[in-house]
């Protein structure tokens, strides 16, 4: 059923149709609308047999989800940014214990400086936490990925993060095709836990494991993600059979077959990129697009396959590995090891900075000429940066950089000092 709604609401409805049994809610923008939506459904009785728990922190949110999942309940929560970081210890714990929790991350920058707008710093900081991370390109895909996420998580006994760009998706009103409860029920079987705390069959979960077995435990976590690599495309296929549309999978390609340059990205920016590519194709540029849906496990083979005919690739990522450059780019470079491709890293859109077709076009043209720096900061205001660098060089007590730069660009009133 087609409907026009906010991305958060679409996700809330989709999650509700997955019949979650325990939901932990703690407010943080831009995730808040999702749990608000589910909360209302629980309160009204629309969503039955579900415990909605207003916890006191994200750490508690994940911890409650851990308990609930270990108790055999399908558990869900959502967070973003600082919230994700606040629950990190529990995030690692959930995957370490193999508890199939599903969590939405409404991607948002991480402070300081505090910033509520979108980039991928939050979930990418959790690259190695052992969770599966799926990135949605559209609200429709965000909705669909949640349904797939529960199935994937519970089959493998691994937690899954569904990442969707904060505000850009969560707060955008778009048309989505909302599945029916029957469709979801047909696709997603009831949760049958691999391990559960049950007085009838007591076990101790969460043993202390020493050097004699820790490596093996970690390897098994890796092996599980490798299984996910096989299972994710299959689930997307099954999803297509049930719901009649393509959603999920490891990667999406767009005009890559004859592309000389392939731009690689995750999330909603793929829309802008495709529009840009469409225009540039008309001008004769052989550019294609590779969207990565499954960031973890990282689809090395799929990436390699997609890039096998191109000359160069550009990884455009909404994240920064401070001190080296790209995060996603590092993984892509590993995928193309030995293929002799030129590769560029473009850091873009941090803290909600708009990524425009104009800037993309200019950047891609430069890349086509192989004139792009290996690491490029898209639309960086060099004037402001250089001024601040100079100021810091001159004055030991130069004051807070963010505020100084905001004054420089006139965003706040200048003050004499």
């Amino acid at each position: 059923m087609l409907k026009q709604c906010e991305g958060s609401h679409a996700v809330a409805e989709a999650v509700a149709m997955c019949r979650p049994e325990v939901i932990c809610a703690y407010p943080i923008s831009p995730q808040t609308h999702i749990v608000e939506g589910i909360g209302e459904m629980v309160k009204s009785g629309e969503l039955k047999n579900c415990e909605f728990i207003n916890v006191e922190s994200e750490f508690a949110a994940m911890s409650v989800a851990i308990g609930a999942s270990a108790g055999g309940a399908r558990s869900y929560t959502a967070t973003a940014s600082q919230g994700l970081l606040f629950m990190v210890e529990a995030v690692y714990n959930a995957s370490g214990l193999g508890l199939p929790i599903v969590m939405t991350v409404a991607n948002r920058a991480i402070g300081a400086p505090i910033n509520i707008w979108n980039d991928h710093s939050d979930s990418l900081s959790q690259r190695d936490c052992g969770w599966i991370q799926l990135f949605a390109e559209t609200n429709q895909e965000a909705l669909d990925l949640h349904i797939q996420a529960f199935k994937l998580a519970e089959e493998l006994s691994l937690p899954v993060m569904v990442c969707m760009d904060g505000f850009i998706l969560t707060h955008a009103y778009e048309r989505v095709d909302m599945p029916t409860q029957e469709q979801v029920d047909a696709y997603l079987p009831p949760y049958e836990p691999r391990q559960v705390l049950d007085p009838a069959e007591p076990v101790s979960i969460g043993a202390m494991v020493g050097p004699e077995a820790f490596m093996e435990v970690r390897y098994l976590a890796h092996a599980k993600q490798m299984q996910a690599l096989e299972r994710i495309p299959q689930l997307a296929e099954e999803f297509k059979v049930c719901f009649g549309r393509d959603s999920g999978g490891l990667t999406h390609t767009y005009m890559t077959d004859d592309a000389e340059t392939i731009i690689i990205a995750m999330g909603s920016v793929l829309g802008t990129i495709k529009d840009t590519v469409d225009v540039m194709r008309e001008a004769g540029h052989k550019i294609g697009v590779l969207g990565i849906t499954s960031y973890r496990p990282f689809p090395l083979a799929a990436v390699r396959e997609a890039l096998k005919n191109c000359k160069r690739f550009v990884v455009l990522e909404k994240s920064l590995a401070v001190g080296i450059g790209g995060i996603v780019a590092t993984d892509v470079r590993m995928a193309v090891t030995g293929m002799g491709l030129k590769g560029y890293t473009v850091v873009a859109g941090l803290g909600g900075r708009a990524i425009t077709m104009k800037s993309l076009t200019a950047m891609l043209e430069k890349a086509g000429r192989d004139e792009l720096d290996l690491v490029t900061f898209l639309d960086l205001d060099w004037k402001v940066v250089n001024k601040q660098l100079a100021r810091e060089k001159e004055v030991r007590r130069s004051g807070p950089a963010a505020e100084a730069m905001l004054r420089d660009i006139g965003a706040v009133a200048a003050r004499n000092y």
Partner: protein
Amino acid sequence: MDKPFAITLNPGSSLANHTGSWRTMRPIYLDRLPPCNNQCPAGEDIQGWLFHAESGNYEKAWRHLTRENPFPAIMGRVCYHTCESACNRGKLDEAVGINSVERFLGDEAIKRGWKFAPQETESGKKVLIVGAGPSGMSAAYHLRRMGHAVTVMDAGPYLGGMMRFGIPKYRLPREVLDAEMQRIIDIGVTVQLNSKVDSVLDSMQAGGFDAAFLAVGAHIGKRAAIPSGDAAKIVDAISVLRSMEGEDKPMLGRRVVVYGGGNTAIDVARTAKRMGAEPIIVYRRTRDKAPAHDFEIEEALQEGVMVKWLSTIKQAGDSSITIEKMALDDDGFPQPTGEFETLEADSVVLALGQDVDLGLLNDVPGLGVKDGVVEVGLNMMTGHPGIFAGGDMVPDRRNVTVAIGHGKKAAKNIDVWLRGESVHPEPKHDLALFERLNTWYYSDAPKTVRPTLDIIRRQSTFEEVQGGLNETNALFEARRCLSCGNCFECDNCYGVCPDNAVIKLGPGKRFKFNYDYCKGCGMCVSECPCGAIKMVPEEN
């Protein structure tokens, strides 16, 4: 359940980890000797019988008690219960009323008609016992239960010896004495009363006895040379008490002077009081030096018996006596002061101690006599093989409980001697000292006071002065026992072990350690209320 590797484990699997290997000291259970048992002259297992009384199983308690001493009803009245002085509970609040519980059990046995089991095996040996007092009857009981044929001969007309002729009725009612004596006869002991043994060897030969136990009481009152006129009426205390048992009650007059400070002096003075006289005790030393038990002096004073402390009788006339005041010297001995006083006296009763008539031993070869008593070895045997002696006849304290203890000890040794064996006494357990106990665990409870007869009746009748406990307060009193040194299955060790290394074996079976897991922390030792566990070094 398809459990994840390493992080999810099967329940209770740590049993594979034997933490006992950490141990350097190991706890062991032991029985320590309770101070009451250690103290009891009759060798009663007091803690043992109290254990059964605590659970209300009085018959079992009585049977346990009478394994060592067949006279609980008598003991509960006349025993001076030194066990209570030794009782560890005395350091906590007040000693357990062992004596009162013993009396309760004894009375309960009489009331319910409990009997000793009949003897089923016979040894074929015959033992002669001379004297039907506490020592003789105690020996008779034990020997009979060992299967020997026992004959008791006594010069007197009744059973009980000094228990009858030396202890007034108001302390030991005769029906109680008779009941406990009869029980001995009921297990097949032959008693010949009014049968004075003039020569033990003759009697043994005549009866074909294999051994003899001599237990003649000290029936002869000691005399003192008091200058006196012909008309002065001077009698000895033991004769007075003995005549109370017969038809002819003693004629002592109104003002009766009792000379002496022992229990017999008190007994005779209190007896005189009950007969309407005005007794006055004259004693050469002070109250705290008097050999009589203080509680008896106190009871006598309550009943109106007068006492002249630090006084000796210088002369006795027909209706008065002269006494001289004494003073204690630096060594505590009384010395004359030269001060005199005259007291009215219709009679003077001498209570200066008693002797035993040793006439029956005149021709026994090897048998030694010293200071008026028979010399015996550690096994109670005299210098003449096969002839044993006890009670008042041998050098020891003279009281009923000691005599009963002699009887038991002699019986054991006679039995061993008859079987041609030698005694190998088991080593005594370590004493259960107060310091070994963890008294925190015992409920606070003051001693139960036994009822006492009202003073008017105490002054005018021979009714029993001290009453007994009823079941409720006897049970209460029994439960005050700390069970020193002996497990009473309080489950503390079982509970306080952090390693579940104590195995509970079930009611009556106590506990054992599971050394696979015991780490040797010693908590069970510290928290055992009664000190029945100790730590010993682990062997390599």
